[in-house]
């Protein structure tokens, strides 16, 4: 668990009322959701998005971080996340970059843990809470089955894109 004094930045993804905080390094890039092709999809995915010449599956989550089977209109951004075996896209309403300094992070209390949950902790962001997760946790939540290893290798030589903050 990241401690409260951990430095660096977090990316806050909004899924309706739910905000999920990820380490900045987990987010490869932020793309427009309209750039995804929803006519082609891997099993379980809603569509695919092409980034740096490779195609990655795109998923959506509801406010309870359960996989959706259709694309909500509010999901305007596709966050491309780096999991162990490659990339995948998660649609979200907004994405913000937050300085980690002065934010207090806590492990998820034992009483609130569910088996197989994507949640790793709770972040007090002053105006409410965000749940702390990881690309791995969200990959599990969306059910990423497999991502092309070839695509992952291809992207490893690409420079990382800085996540962009959406205007509020």
């Amino acid at each position, binding site marked *: 668990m990241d401690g409260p004094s951990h430095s660096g930045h977090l990316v806050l993804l909004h*899924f309706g*009322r*739910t905000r999920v905080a990820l380490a900045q390094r987990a987010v490869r890039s932020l793309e427009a959701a309209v750039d995804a092709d929803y006519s082609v999809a891997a099993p379980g995915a809603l569509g695919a998005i092409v980034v740096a010449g490779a195609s990655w599956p795109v998923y959506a989550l509801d*406010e*309870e*971080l359960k996989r959706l089977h259709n694309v909500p209109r509010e999901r305007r951004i596709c966050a491309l996340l780096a999991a162990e075996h490659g990339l995948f896209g998660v649609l979200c309403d907004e994405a913000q970059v937050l300085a980690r300094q002065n934010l*207090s992070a*806590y*492990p*998820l*209390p*034992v*009483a*609130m*843990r*569910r*088996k197989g*949950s*994507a*949640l790793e902790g*709770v972040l*007090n962001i002053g105006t*409410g*809470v965000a*749940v702390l997760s990881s690309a791995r946790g969200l990959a599990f939540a969306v059910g990423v089955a497999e991502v092309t290893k070839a695509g992952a290798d291809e992207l490893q030589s690409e420079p990382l894109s800085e996540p962009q903050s959406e205007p509020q």
Partner: protein
Amino acid sequence: MSSAGAWVLTFGDFGGVRAAVGVREQVHLMLEPEAAEVAGTPAHCRHVIFWNGRCVPVMDLSRWLDAVTTATAPPNRRRHLGVYAYQTEANAAVEFGALWLARPPQRIEVDDEAAASLPMDSARWADVASACFTDAAGAVPVLDLSRVFSGALAGA
């Protein structure tokens, strides 16, 4: 005959569920609490409070006791929060958890002679209570807080 102090706690929309904790286990009472909802958590434990630099889970015990009938129901009306201290074993660090309460706890003294069987209104009492006594209003299970706030209830 010996006696001990206890707090009687009342839960649920209509205050129909009662339980007790030891007098030293209650460490704080919030009459108008501000709790934050955490997505993706069990229906009976969806909120946290930030208290004394800690993230404290808030348990809706009446909802857990009645999980079969309230699984899809909206959350109970909640009024107050009690914060409780417990240890998982004798030399373990003190941990904290909170319970939604229908009204402020009532301080009582309990005699050994008041010992009783757990009430039959929920089969789940046996999972969270370590003892039970009776008063004029009926049976009052005594909560084992280390069980209440253990991960066991999340999967039960």
